[in-house]
């Protein structure tokens, strides 16, 4: 069963997310890498949002069954 998430309906606070993830991981990210990591996290967020957007099709009648 696929569960939709609400996080993609609002903007992604990547700075805040990254700080929380780094704290949870106990890792001090070198400052020089931060910009590149943020850019890539934003790209992953966009990918996750795109996959999420496809989910209503899965949640409808016959979810998981071929439709084409």
């Amino acid at each position, binding site marked *: *069963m*696929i*569960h939709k*998430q609400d996080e993609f309906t609002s903007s992604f606070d990547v700075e805040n*997310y*990254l700080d929380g*993830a*780094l704290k949870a*991981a106990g*890792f001090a*990210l*070198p400052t020089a*890498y931060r910009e*590149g*990591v*943020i*850019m*890539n*996290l934003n*790209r*992953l*967020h*966009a*990918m*996750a949002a*795109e*996959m*999420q*957007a*496809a*989910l209503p*099709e*899965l949640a409808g009648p016959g*979810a*998981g*069954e*071929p*439709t*084409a």
Partner: protein
Amino acid sequence: MSTQPHPIVTHPIVNRALDLAAQVSSRSRSAFDVVGETLARIDSANATLNCFSEVYREQAYAAARAVDAAIAAGRNPGPLAGVPVAVKNLFDVAGHVTLAGSRLLADQAPAQADAFIIERLRRAGAIVVGALHMDEFAYGFTTENSHYGAVRNPHDPSLVAGGSSGGSGAAVGGGLVPIALGTDTNGSIRVPAALCGIWGLKPTFGRLSRSGCFPFVASLDHVGPLADSVSDLALAYDLMQGRDAQDPACAARETEAVSPLLAALDPAAHLHGLRIGIAADYFQDHVEPEAWQAVERAAALVGATIEIVLPQASAARAAAFLMTAYEGGKLHWPNLTLRAQEFEPLSRDRLLAGALSPERWYLQAPEFRRWYRAQVDAVFQRVDVILAPSTPRSATPIGATTMTVAGQQMMPRAHMGMLTQPISFIGLPVVAAPFHIPGKMPLGVQIIAPQWREDRCLRVARALELASADFRAKPRQPEAGARLTL
């Protein structure tokens, strides 16, 4: 479906591996001489192409002597007798350090044994002449590796060779070896095959063993050959098949040889009974016109008229992107926390982001994959084979940070594989066919079949190769004196 007229050109099909093996087996040439000529070509061209990370000179000569001795003693040297083969430098080769395109692994101990598929090729008489550059840890589509330099395209050294098996593409496309091995997690065989104008095969997930291959994304990693003819491609594939308990993903299937199916010289014989579809929608919307022209040309040659849609292909690509970042990031997390400065900078930032991305994003991807696979399975009730472009466009300049595709700007390193990802995501077999018309850079067409039906991919590939010189590899060595500063 229409196609533009093309100038009639003739370019012979050259089965370099098969021809060399026949010559060596019949003693019209020695394996020793073949290796010597190959090494001379590598010495001459590698300064420009930068495709070899290591050349196994002494071992290659020793292996050649062994092949020649076996023949002199009346023993069968194998179907690849004396054929030079080169391998992406993430495969273990006994006695050599497996780099995986990284500086982090350069101080590791040499591999103690060959990778499973390399051992298979050696047993068939092949001679491994060297290892080939790649994107660090196979994370990229351009093989612009700041540690080891960019691999250059044999058809224009100012352009990329594609990736991550860029060294493999350049070594075959540059005429240095007839067969190379690569890996394909998201398109890393198919992209360099297309951009370098050669054939590539990404078999069904689980068909070929990955034992002795440095991993990237366990749920998506495939291994396979690149070659400059369909017959050579098929032969290498046949010889590498076989069960291997060391790779848990390797299926317990008997060898299903395809080479015997490809002998006919009439293209129609290979197409008999096949319903061939053309992937429209996502695959047509994200290409430059030249890349779609390749599909139209292939469709016209094989009589494909059925347009199909792979539902949510763009989301499938997104899901593959997420799985790759997350699994790849987690794999390298220990080194990222301790030795981040030693990573290739562009790979490092992508891997860090993947490792730090929310697990909840990743966990949905496998579920989405089950749904998507069912959709594609349903499409294969209507057609037996699907054609799609291999890449959105031809090779980009080395150092380019953006490329234009259908009016959008995007990064080549991350997006050149956007049309291959939705296919490998569900492990389908694909042959990447080279499309090469005079005066233009090569492009490619994916020939996609249901799981375990590599035979269909190769039958259509053989038909295309026989039907038109547009679909024949044209290996091209850099001109003498074309050395470039890397």
